């Protein structure tokens, strides 16, 4: 019991305090790739500190939904951080609903954020909300079918058990079903966390923006929470991808040393994945908004093919 509690605290701390570093590293890498000096990887921490010191401007049009949303959003992500295997194969809250819970927790966060976008009554917020929920809704079948494909091979939907099972398969990387599911989930990760080519996280005033338009009314500590939550979502999603598809290095929860090893392994995996996302974001342009559904349909096709590969091989 105490060990689980300690693990939960460590896991939340890693996700909560690692997330801004991940976003900072991604930004630095992207800047270097296009030949700019770029900010330090630690810049997001400074941003949060600055925002926390500022006053909040709240629109008179808004209701309590607008003020509660940043906290609700952070709550969904802190809970999500306990469901994903981060550095051990036994996430502390694994028993509470597994990957389906994770998907619906992200939906809970999106639900509140989209409501907050409508609450201020500006066209920007409404436009962002409408687009964000459209992308989230269309991404969901891919996640569920890809996860079903993984669960089929692991004979469990428990994330820890899936990871354990795959760690015992040395030729995992050569399995077509596995690679297809990875590709599908990678595209969904880009869409769900608002990265290129679905959304551009670097702009604020562009009519094609999605996430940034929705949170336009937030300022001060509320904005700090919302940005921090976005970073955590990226961290959780990337951790999930990294550990599902490169399952080696995770610890059985036996003691501090294996957990430390697990954390280091995670750092290495995330570094590789971050580099990949940075390269991709430098290489591709943003898609027109109404081309995004085609991309998501493509990712669904990949997930479906992964499933078919399993049915056929069986």
């Amino acid at each position: 019991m105490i060990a689980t509690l300690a693990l939960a605290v460590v896991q939340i701390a890693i996700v909560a305090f690692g997330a801004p570093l991940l976003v900072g590293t991604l930004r630095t890498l992207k800047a270097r790739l296009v030949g700019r000096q770029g900010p330090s990887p630690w810049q997001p921490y400074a941003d949060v500190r600055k925002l926390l010191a500022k006053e909040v401007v709240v629109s008179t049009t808004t209701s309590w939904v607008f003020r509660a949303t940043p906290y609700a959003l952070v709550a969904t992500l802190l809970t999500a951080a306990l469901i994903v295997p981060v550095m051990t194969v036994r996430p502390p809250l694994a028993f509470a609903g597994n990957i389906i819970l994770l998907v619906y927790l992200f939906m809970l966060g999106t639900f509140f954020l989209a409501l907050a976008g409508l609450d201020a009554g500006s066209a920007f917020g409404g436009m962002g909300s409408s687009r964000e929920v459209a992308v989230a809704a269309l991404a969901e079948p891919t996640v569920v079918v890809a996860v079903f494909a993984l669960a089929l091979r692991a004979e469990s939907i428990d994330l820890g058990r899936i990871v354990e099972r795959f760690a015992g398969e040395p030729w995992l990387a050569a399995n077509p079903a596995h690679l297809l599911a990875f590709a599908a989930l990678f595209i969904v990760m880009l869409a769900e966390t608002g990265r290129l080519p679905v959304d551009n996280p670097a702009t604020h005033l562009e009519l094609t923006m999605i996430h940034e338009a929705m949170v336009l009314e937030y300022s001060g500590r509320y904005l700090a929470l919302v940005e921090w939550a976005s970073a955590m979502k990226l961290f959780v999603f990337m951790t999930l991808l990294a550990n599902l598809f490169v399952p080696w290095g995770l610890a059985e929860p036996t003691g501090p040393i294996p957990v430390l090893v697990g954390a280091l392994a995670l750092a290495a995996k995330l570094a590789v994945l971050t580099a990949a996302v940075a390269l991709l974001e430098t290489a591709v342009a943003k898609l027109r908004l109404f081309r995004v559904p085609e991309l998501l349909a493509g990712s669904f096709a990949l997930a479906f093919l992964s499933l078919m590969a399993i049915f056929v091989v069986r």
Partner: protein
Amino acid sequence: MTRLGYGVVALMGAAAVGLGGYGMTGGGAALRLPSLLPLGGLELTLDPLGGLFLALIGCAAIPASIYAFGDAAGARRGRFAYAVFVTSMCVVPVAANTMTFLIAWELMSLASYFLVLHDRQSKGSVNAAWIYAVMTHAGLACLLAGMLLLGADVGSPRFADWRAAAPTLTPTTRDAAFLLLALGFAGKAGVVPLHVWLPLAHPAAPSHVSALMSGVMIKLGVYGLLRVSLDWLGIGPSWWGAALLIAGAASSLIGVLYALVEHDLKRLLAFHSIENIGIILLGIGSAALYRVAGLDALAALGLIAALYHTVNHAMFKALLFLGAGAVVHATGTRNMEAMGGLIKRMPWTAVCFLVGSAAIAALPPLNGFVSEWLTFLALFQNMRLEAVGQNLVFTLGIASLALTGGLAMACFVKAFGITFLALPRSDAAARAHEASRPVRVAMLTLVTACVVLGVGPTLVVPTLESVASAVLGTAPEAISGDWLTVRVSGQFASVSTAAIAVVLAGSFCAPLVALRLVGASRRTRAYETWGCGRIVQTPRMEYTATAFASPFKRVFDFFYRPTKRLDIEFHPESRFFVERIEYENPTRSIFEDWLYRPALRLLHGGARAAGALQSGSANQYLAYILAALLLMLVLA
């Protein structure tokens, strides 16, 4: 007098809950009065499945009657029909022979017909009632044919005899009976493509009746489908289950897609009923398929998921309809585009509607999440089936359930956000008033039910499991667990909404405390919404429901087939000044265009052709009689 009537119905609901609960937990009871009715007499039997539905009707009737208590002006007319409606609904799940069942069924349909016809001045509601009457009687004809067929073949109108004789029936009889009965029940449940009456009839009735129609009346269609596919006809061929699964996938997706582009608040909710019936059918279909394959534990899981969702949908849909009723009462319109800002004028209703929205969108830790989670788990385990064709059908179910979940979330962001948030879009919305106390009590009762069913699956699931094993006739260990966790199929998966609720609440408070500890600024300034430098903010600048739904309209245009009409009137002096813009972007129903219109045309054509026989000449009619007589003599 009105209040007394509704009070009696509420008490009757409480009695139904008690009796149903007794039946659900294994208590049996039977009543037989052979002389009361012809053809078998009145016969009532209480079994676990019937008990569950009886208790459910009671649970929904209590808050609906309390609501009617507070809405005296709207509820004075039709209180007799309402009492008949609730009573006949209570009889349906305990009816034990054809005669009793069909009389209760028809009374329920007739009473609800009169309630749909509530507003006799409006052309819309007369039309809705007419379509409802036609569809419900087409369904009744199917039920009657199926029941007579079975009754003649088995030689008894009693359901218990059908159950016993099911294995001895020929496959053709069983398939024909299944098709007829399933069609009749699916029509009442609103399964696509038999759903067309539902979005017309439910909104036309007063809100407490809409709550009951959407919450429990269509569930009696589900009850019938359960009896047909799992009980009366024994274990059927696998196409029954596959057909139910495919119908469920189609209904869930099509229901939510129509709801997305619907801006009449009550019609939107009616379309969501179609969606949720689809989700229930996914559970029933999977149960039927697993049962054919001999996987009783998985069949029980699918059935538990379906029953759980049935109960949940009754609660949150009743809650949402009562909330919508309060909003319509306060603003005088059902059009969401004329609402907005109600969260400030109606804080109680807003909170209740928000809980209902989160529950129907299956957001954890509320009740919709638990039953959709169970449905997912029932569908996921199709790898135990060996037939690839069946695996594909299950995959279709999984994908459509996932897409439905996402789209339902999007739809309720629209429903709550446009109705309750931002600035009021009309004077009526700006002058809205909070609902009366009985209405609030009714809504809060249902909110409590949603929360308890959400965080307490460990209390609910064992009861449903005993109902499921009574229906399936086996006692498989589908679900285990302790006070905190529900565990499915051994090690496969587990869920604990209580733990989720605690962790969510903890991590909601954590940043509140943490921000204070790190000394974050607590200064807050109230100011206008940022608007690119414009002077004042008006409701016309807000995003509308139409605009909110437009990405979906574009993505799914092959389904909506939207037509566009744009009229611009320019100033006579210059084309750079616009006097008036009219924009219309309606969608069309593929079911009306491709199914119902051609069928009606065929019917009209046939009627006209038959009309040629009717010349008005008495001699010709005498010739017909003679011809008929001769024909009968020859045939005999």
